[in-house]
């Protein structure tokens, strides 16, 4: 077992555990913090897979942006004791669904044989840069537009009616 494998299993375990905590913990804040840990673990996984830039982007955007945003949301919607109870009904059905889903995906994964060999080398960032400003230029520009649109949308949704 190489160092890479150990690192991977570590990252995998942390991410799974964090995800489970995130979806099952009754206390909201614990949930959100577990989510943050999960994001870090995923970033590690990216690193292991050789996507360095993506890993860093993950940390910047997700951890620094999304997680913080969600924390803001938690703070703004705070009310006494209401978040305490987040229990569910019929967890069995959800469990069954999730298990079926997992089973399917794992089965497919197990049967998958890649056509070409796996590259173990990390991807050079310059390749990424060239792709973004080359063949993927349209997507790149569109992302900008989408970001703008979503900012406007969010503003529009939370706007208070004038005169209230």
């Amino acid at each position, binding site marked *: 077992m190489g160092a890479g494998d150990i690192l991977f299993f570590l990252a995998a375990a942390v991410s799974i555990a964090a995800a489970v905590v995130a*979806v099952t913990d009754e206390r909201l804040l614990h949930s959100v913090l577990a989510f943050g840990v999960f*994001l870090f673990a995923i970033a590690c996984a990216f690193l292991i897979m050789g996507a360095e830039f*993506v890993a860093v982007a993950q940390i910047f955007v*997700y951890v620094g942006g999304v997680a913080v945003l969600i924390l803001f949301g938690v703070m703004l919607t705070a009310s006494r004791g209401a978040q305490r109870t987040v229990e569910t009904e019929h967890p069995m059905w*959800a469990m069954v669904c999730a298990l079926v889903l997992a089973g399917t995906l794992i089965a497919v994964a197990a049967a998958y044989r890649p056509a070409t060999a796996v590259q173990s080398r990390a991807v050079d960032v310059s390749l990424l840069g060239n792709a973004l400003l080359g063949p993927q230029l349209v997507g790149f520009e569109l992302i900008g537009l*989408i970001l703008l649109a979503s900012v406007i949308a969010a503003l529009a*949704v*939370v706007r208070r009616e004038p005169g209230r």
Partner: protein
Amino acid sequence: MTRFLVLSGLLLAIGAYGVMTRRNAICTLLGLEIMLNAGNLNLIAFSRVSPSPAVGQTFVLFSIGIAACEAAVGLALILAMWRRYRTVDIDKLVSLKE
């Protein structure tokens, strides 16, 4: 390679369970984000066996960007719901009930 796919599959299932199960709207959003991340993981895994790995990774970058947008809009909606109903319990949103 397989291990990454297995990991992403598991995470997807966990995320799905979270979406289906949680009552607090913010927690639902968390489950959704978990699913998105699982998807990203899957994409990176496949980009390693693809002839142009950069494409897969740019796709993931886009995905992260969009996830951020979606989180923003989602939280805006949750805020709006908070203002209107004074709760974020999605079980209270039943005006579409027949």
